[in-house]
């Protein structure tokens, strides 16, 4: 196939050529970045929590009366006894929050007591000696808390227990040599806290962008919240009995003491609901970007069909002449396919630059990640195939132009 006659023909249709190339370029830039946004959001949604999600639910238990620390501690103990003896419940723990809850408690971590700049940040979970078992966390080193280590934590007390269990991600961040067990660190306190155990995965409570650098960094302290406001209970149902447990648990607690509330919003949630809410924005973004990509590709394809059809109509006579001079159906078909390929390649060259430019700007403004090359390569292939596909029908029509057209006036 000779390229030269195609190029000289394109030179006579500068505007149309430039418009198709420009459209392909812009489409490539948007589609690559949109697909990358989709990928990042889906990856965020897929992050593992490390807990036994299918059997867990959380209750936000707010007290209906103002209790002292001692009263609140006794009420919590009583509630837990009630929950744990329910036939559908495997275990329960009092805590300050749960993975993916959004917001929640986080502390700065330092390696020395007088260090002013933080080493890193950890999501803080508190619970009793049932915490690991209830959440179904996998202890990979060290030991669990024992009952004697659990202290009560009253209103605005900054109690820092001497022992902690941390996630593997945090352990690796603080002690890259893998010897975290038995070591200690400081967490907004002048007294150290010693690592007695390491769990495999424990997602943070918050899911927002600012905490992305600290993903997976969590610590657990043996504390029982005894506060006037209330406490979260995380409950693990026996396998297959989640719905029963979620029905029985509030009923049993109300029967024991009715001066409590489970707020209408997030008062009683299982992990399906927790996930849905935590990743609402991510899912929305992925859907929106997906729709935009699909419509964009469709519109670009339609535009190519439209403009090529016009060219075919305009060149019927020339095609007729070529056919009369011996060009086959195939030659004409190839002519239009090659023409489109050349335009596409031009558009892709500009589009690649635009894609990276747009990405740089998104990185700077919204701290999106850097666009991997595979996305651009994938985008290129998609657009070339799209262009060839779009041009095929008009090109086929062109190839069917009979040689007799050559004799007709334009």
């Amino acid at each position, binding site marked *: 196939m000779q390229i030269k006659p195609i190029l000289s023909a394109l030179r006579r249709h500068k505007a*149309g050529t430039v*418009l198709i190339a420009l459209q392909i370029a812009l489409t490539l830039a948007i589609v690559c970045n949109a697909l990358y946004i989709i990928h990042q959001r889906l990856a965020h949604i897929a992050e593992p929590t490390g807990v036994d999600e299918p059997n867990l639910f959380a209750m936000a238990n707010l007290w209906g009366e103002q209790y002292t620390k001692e009263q609140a501690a006794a009420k919590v103990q009583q509630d837990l006894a009630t929950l744990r003896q329910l036939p559908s419940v495997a275990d329960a723990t009092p805590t300050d929050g749960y993975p993916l809850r959004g917001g929640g408690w986080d502390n700065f971590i330092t390696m020395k007591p007088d260090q002013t700049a933080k080493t890193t940040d950890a999501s803080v979970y508190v619970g009793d000696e049932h915490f690991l078992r209830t959440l179904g966390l996998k202890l990979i080193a060290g030991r669990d808390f024992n009952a004697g280590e659990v202290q009560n934590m009253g209103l605005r007390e900054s109690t820092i227990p001497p022992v902690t269990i941390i996630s593997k991600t945090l352990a690796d961040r603080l002690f890259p040599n893998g010897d975290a067990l038995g070591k200690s660190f400081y967490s*907004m306190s002048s007294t150290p806290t010693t690592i007695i155990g390491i769990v495999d995965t424990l997602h943070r409570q918050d899911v927002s962008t600012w905490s992305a650098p600290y993903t997976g960094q969590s610590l657990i302290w043996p504390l029982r919240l005894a506060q006037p406001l209330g406490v979260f209970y995380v409950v693990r149902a026996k396998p297959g009995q989640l719905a029963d447990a979620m029905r029985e648990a509030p009923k049993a607690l109300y029967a024991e003491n009715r001066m409590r509330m489970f707020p209408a919003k997030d008062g009683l949630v299982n992990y399906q609901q927790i996930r849905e809410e935590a990743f609402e924005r991510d899912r*929305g973004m992925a859907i929106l970007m997906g729709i935009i990509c699909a419509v964009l590709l469709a519109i670009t394809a339609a535009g190519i069909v439209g403009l090529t059809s016009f060219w075919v109509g305009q060149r019927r006579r020339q095609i007729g002449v070529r056919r009369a001079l011996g060009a086959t159906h195939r030659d004409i078909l190839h002519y239009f396919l090659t023409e489109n390929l050349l335009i596409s390649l031009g558009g892709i060259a500009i589009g690649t630059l635009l894609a990276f430019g*747009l990405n740089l700007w998104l990185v700077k403004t919204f701290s999106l990640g850097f666009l991997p090359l595979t996305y651009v390569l994938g985008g290129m292939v998609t657009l070339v195939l799209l262009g060839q596909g779009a041009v095929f029908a008009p090109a086929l029509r062109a190839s069917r132009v009979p040689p007799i057209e050559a004799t007709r006036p334009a």
Partner: protein
Amino acid sequence: MYAYYLQLGLRSLRRNPMLTALMMMAIGFGVAASMITYSVFRAVSDDPIPNKSSQLFAPQIDSWGPQQNEKGEPPGALNYVDAMALMRAHKASRQTLIYPVMLSALGRDADSVPSSASGYAVTGDFFPMFEVPFLYGSGWNTSEDDHRAADVVLTKEFNQRMFGGANSVGKEIVLGGNAYRIVGVAQHWNPAPRFYAVWGEDGFSESPDFYVLLNRMLDLHVDSSGRNSCRGNLAFTGWDQWLQSNCVWLMPWVELNTRSDAEQYRQFLTSYAADQQHAGRFGWPANIRLLDVMAFMTQQNVVPPESRISLIVALCFFVICLVNTIGLLLAKFMRRAGEIGVRRALGATRREIYTQYLLEAASVGIAGGVLGLLLTAVGMSGVSLLFDQEIAQLAHLDLSLVALTLLVSVLAAVAAAFYPAWRAAQVQPAWQLKSN
């Protein structure tokens, strides 16, 4: 004549229904995507209190110092010590402190279970400062703040829930086990974003249930149900020590009516922070901010990044749709080169050709706009799939958005037609007539 051109335009559009449909769809989809994302962006970036936003300021004092603050910026809220000092100094015409609380509310039924009620602990100036509208009664006088009275203002929604909507002013309500006197019932009032409390909240949640007297809450040790942010080593072992700590949790607002008032207040803040340095409380020079409502919204990143990114991507999408339309219009116009040649030969000026084809494009724009409007209306019902429920609720299709959709469509179509119409006007009559 213009009506005739428009008629010609419509006729020509009917002649190539496929091409016309394609252009309509390009404009329709482009404008709908832009309008849907814009409606959400508009909802989250709107001025929540337009007639006063330049007179309300959030004072900020750096109580954490250069080593522990966020990139040199003071924290967005105040600790108890600084907050109380600002209140005592009373250098603004009106001033308030706010923190969120959650209390139980007992129904009138003796054996009902308590339900949770969320509200804000505020001072008396809160109501006139933010122009809270009242259904019954009013806010409390600032002298009540000094008397640490058990006063509460209910919102219309909460009053409906607790008193069936009756005038409850003067009645008592038990919240968190303590009795309060209802002094007023506010009309529905929930600015979006809820500017006065966006530090530590997303700013778009449902209306609160009540506003309660701050000093009373402090006396009862009612804990903040919102954000509390601290730095350094924490040594407090209870409420009173916590109040003296560097933890920030109280949101201050002041009303300053003139530019010079604001300047004076800024000087006051600077000298207050400098005094703290001299007294040895701060180990760093004064670092303060005094931000009005919109500046505070920007600093607190109230607009979710998702909303911004989706608007930008939608606008880029619209641009591509326009490029597409330019190509299609060019094809459409140039196909009629012969017709143009005849018209030019019969005496039509270039200008007339130009006008005719721009009007033809405008009619495509109108049709595309109508399609875009339909798509926007359909898309609006799906906004809740794409954004947070709370934010999706705020986006709606109103008259101004309808007008904007049509206007943008027509303008876009005409802009897209500039080049193709110019090309059409350049057609050489002689050449066209000859080749025919």
